[in-house]
């Protein structure tokens, strides 16, 4: 028979079609995340087996391997990225549910947020300066504990690089999600609401996703911390930058 050719279409043509459409990036992103979740569950939700970290490494390795430029990948993955905004809005629900319990705690929460926010800036900027990083890089640390979209806005406002700020913000989120349990155990923090709030102040969205996977109360307080840090940071950091001139 001479039906060989239609029975075996040229694979490379399909490949071109797939990589030209959003499908490849979407399957890659969701598939890598699904793998990450499986590993995370198998490891009893151990913080080092963070599913997001696993997904990030898998996707980055794959697109490097198949020589796909990041911009091409993002063209497809932007559909997932878009939902980040929608999911942020939906955090109002867990926060609302925890509101009753939060009312009596608002002063300790605000004090902890201010202390944590200041610690984040002073320690990162101070240490980077001490280790001889140039001022362009030091500037990127100022807003890094604020959730990335707000952090980039703050960066523009105070005249430092939004790209570096976003890179440091996301890296901080990953580090915080992985390390939080050890730090919190070390300082003997036992209440879920306190643990959740601390992770949200330091590691915004990625910390919040870890908190939700461990305990719903921790997740609600982490979202609250992330939101408050974002809003207060957007007001206070540019103000502080003007007063202290850093």
């Amino acid at each position: 028979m001479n039906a060989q050719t239609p029975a075996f279409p040229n694979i490379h043509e399909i490949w071109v079609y797939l990589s030209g459409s959003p499908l490849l990036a979407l399957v890659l992103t969701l598939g890598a995340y699904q793998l990450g979740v499986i590993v995370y569950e198998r490891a009893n939700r151990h913080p080092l087996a963070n599913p997001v970290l696993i997904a990030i490494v898998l996707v980055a390795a794959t697109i490097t391997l198949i020589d796909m430029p990041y911009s091409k990948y993002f063209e497809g993955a932007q559909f997932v990225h878009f939902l980040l905004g929608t999911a942020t809005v939906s955090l109002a629900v867990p926060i609302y549910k925890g509101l009753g319990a939060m009312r009596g705690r608002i002063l300790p929460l605000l004090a902890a947020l201010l202390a944590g926010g200041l610690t984040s800036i002073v320690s990162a900027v101070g240490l980077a300066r001490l280790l001889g990083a140039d001022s362009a890089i030091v500037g990127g640390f100022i807003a890094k504990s604020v959730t990335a979209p707000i952090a980039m806005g703050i960066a523009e406002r105070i005249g430092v690089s939004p790209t570096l700020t976003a890179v440091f913000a996301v890296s901080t989120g990953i580090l915080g999600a992985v390390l939080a349990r050890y730090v919190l155990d070390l300082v003997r923090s036992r209440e879920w609401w306190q643990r959740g709030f601390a992770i949200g102040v330091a590691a915004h969205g990625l910390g919040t996703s870890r908190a939700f996977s461990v305990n719903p109360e921790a997740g609600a307080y982490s979202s609250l911390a992330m939101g408050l840090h974002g809003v207060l940071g957007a007001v206070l950091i540019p103000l502080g930058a003007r007063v202290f001139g850093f």
Partner: protein
Amino acid sequence: MMPGLVQILLFQGLGELITHFFLPLIPGPVVGLILLLGFLALRKGVNASLDEVATVFSQHFGLLFVPAAVGVVMFWPHLKAHAVAIGAALLVSVVLTIAVTALVLKGLSRGSGK
């Protein structure tokens, strides 16, 4: 599930509009979150459909960071020359921030008898 999703998208859109015209520094989704929170406080309750959507989102919040975070990982090689200073600053800072926040909360809530 659909009514809840539509509701959230509406608040997201409203947030984007307010950001665009009045509050350029606060991203639309954060404004949307605050508006939805106010709406829930007025309504005094969360309907089942909204609750369902919010639960799904909060369980897979991490997935939505993957596309942006991959860009961050791809950017790291550009920072090679400063790797030690940056790595140390990020690491020490995040550890201290978590510790200080948790300690302040513990100290202050013990004082108030909780």
